[in-house]
């Protein structure tokens, strides 16, 4: 027996068609990728794996991906006009079919170049019903759904940093739901992903950015239907 939490998992989502996994999920993945980049986007390469390779045009996956990169939500009727919107925004883009190895059949890799020239690489999968999972950020394995407010911090791998970050949340009465901690190597760069129950304020984010050893803070706000 499966647990269905809400009736709106069955009556919904409200989305732009035709496919929850190939359209709505793709738009959601791209929208998350946009916020993980953390700056204005100059260029994006979409590497399409598995079933996306054959049906991406017929399911409007290409438009959904462009729209998400431009910040549109999966229920925005503007999705269908994504090519025009990308042109207006001066966004450079390319779609490449690529085998990404032993990953979920509906996986996409985003290679995003920001206006500063920084490159962000994100891998995520559309896992059905419009739900997604981000599995890699700049080569570091991560695991989050984009359904919660998510704060990603890149920091020095040093003792005490986790408690410093959680203290900032505690001070503002923000409850932490999940924490994932990983690092490239001992004493090198660490990544902490915190899913929290309420939105962090600009002030909270500024406090996090001001912490010693914290190099970068990225915040993802989920779409509210």
């Amino acid at each position: 027996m499966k647990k269905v939490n809400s009736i709106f998992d069955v009556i919904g989502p409200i989305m732009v068609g035709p496919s929850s996994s190939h359209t709505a999920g793709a738009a959601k993945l791209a929208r998350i990728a946009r916020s993980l980049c953390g700056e204005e986007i100059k260029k994006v390469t979409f590497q399409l794996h598995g079933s996306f390779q054959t049906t991406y045009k017929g399911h409007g996956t290409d438009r959904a991906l462009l729209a998400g990169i431009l910040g549109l939500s999966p229920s925005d009727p503007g999705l269908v006009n994504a090519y025009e919107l990308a042109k207006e925004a001066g966004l450079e883009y390319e779609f490449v079919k690529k085998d990404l190895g032993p990953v979920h059949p509906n996986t996409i890799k985003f290679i995003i170049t920001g206006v500063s020239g920084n490159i962000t690489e994100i891998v995520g999968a559309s896992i059905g019903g419009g739900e997604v999972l981000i599995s890699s950020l700049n080569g570091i394995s991560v695991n989050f759904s984009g359904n919660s407010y998510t704060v990603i911090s890149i920091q020095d791998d040093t003792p005490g940093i986790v408690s410093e970050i959680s203290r900032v949340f505690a001070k503002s009465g923000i409850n932490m739901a999940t924490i994932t901690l990983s690092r490239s190597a001992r004493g090198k760069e660490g990544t902490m992903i915190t899913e929290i129950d309420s939105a962090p304020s600009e002030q909270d984010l500024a406090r996090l950015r001001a912490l010693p050893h914290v190099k970068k803070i990225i915040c993802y706000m989920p779409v509210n239907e």
Partner: protein
Amino acid sequence: MFNNGNELLKLCQETKLPIWEIAVLDEMESTGADRDDILDKTAQAWETMKGSFADIEGRPTMGGLIGGEAKKLSLMDGEKTLLGSAANTAMQRAMACSQHNAAMGRICAAPTAGSCGIMPAALSTAAERLGLGDEEAIHAVLTAGAIGKIIVTNATVSGAEGGCQAECGSASAMAAAALVEMAGGSPRQALDAAAIALKNIMGLICDPIAGLVESPCAKRNASGAVNAMLSAALALAGIESIVPFDEVVEAMYDVGLEMNSRFRETAKGGIAATPTGQALAERILK
């Protein structure tokens, strides 16, 4: 609060409340949301559903396999058609939704995008025939949601997992129960209607040409909407489902699990694998 039809029925009998009221209480308990928020959110779903069949002409679809069906049906004089105006209207709206979905229009996936035409078509047509307004239709959406929740809990609504019987079959069962409550039938009749609707589509595979949600999906939405209406009509006439709803849901899941993967949304069997289906796929996906 309830995990199956039997438990839902018991709750209705104990509280003397219709299914939709139990659905609201259940949602309050499982998510902590308050009643007004739940009704507001359901109203948004209903507005989206109505919007998804509003465009009779429709835009071109991504795959170009369908388009114009709703327009053709709208040109028929409903009273003089074989099925009469109610079925004609329901088919027209179901196919309008399918085209809207395939043309990247905004829809409510209830329970899935592929079956998104069935609930809007059946519920809106019934509301008009019964002289009911949005409020009753919104309640009916909740009735349908309770049925859908039971199916997801005990089986599946995914075509990739259980074939079209799981997608369009579930949508049709959800709509059938909703129509019974709209027409003033009992919770037991609503569950009977849902059981009948599922039985009528049992075994239907998911075989979309080129893997796209267009053909035969749009016609199956028309068929699913009318199936919901006929199932509700049978139940309202006092015809019972010989096998209870919960057992039918289990049977549907069993059939789905036994289905070869060629028949579960992979576009490798059924209509998709016919010479015509293959030729169309080659043209579209090239």
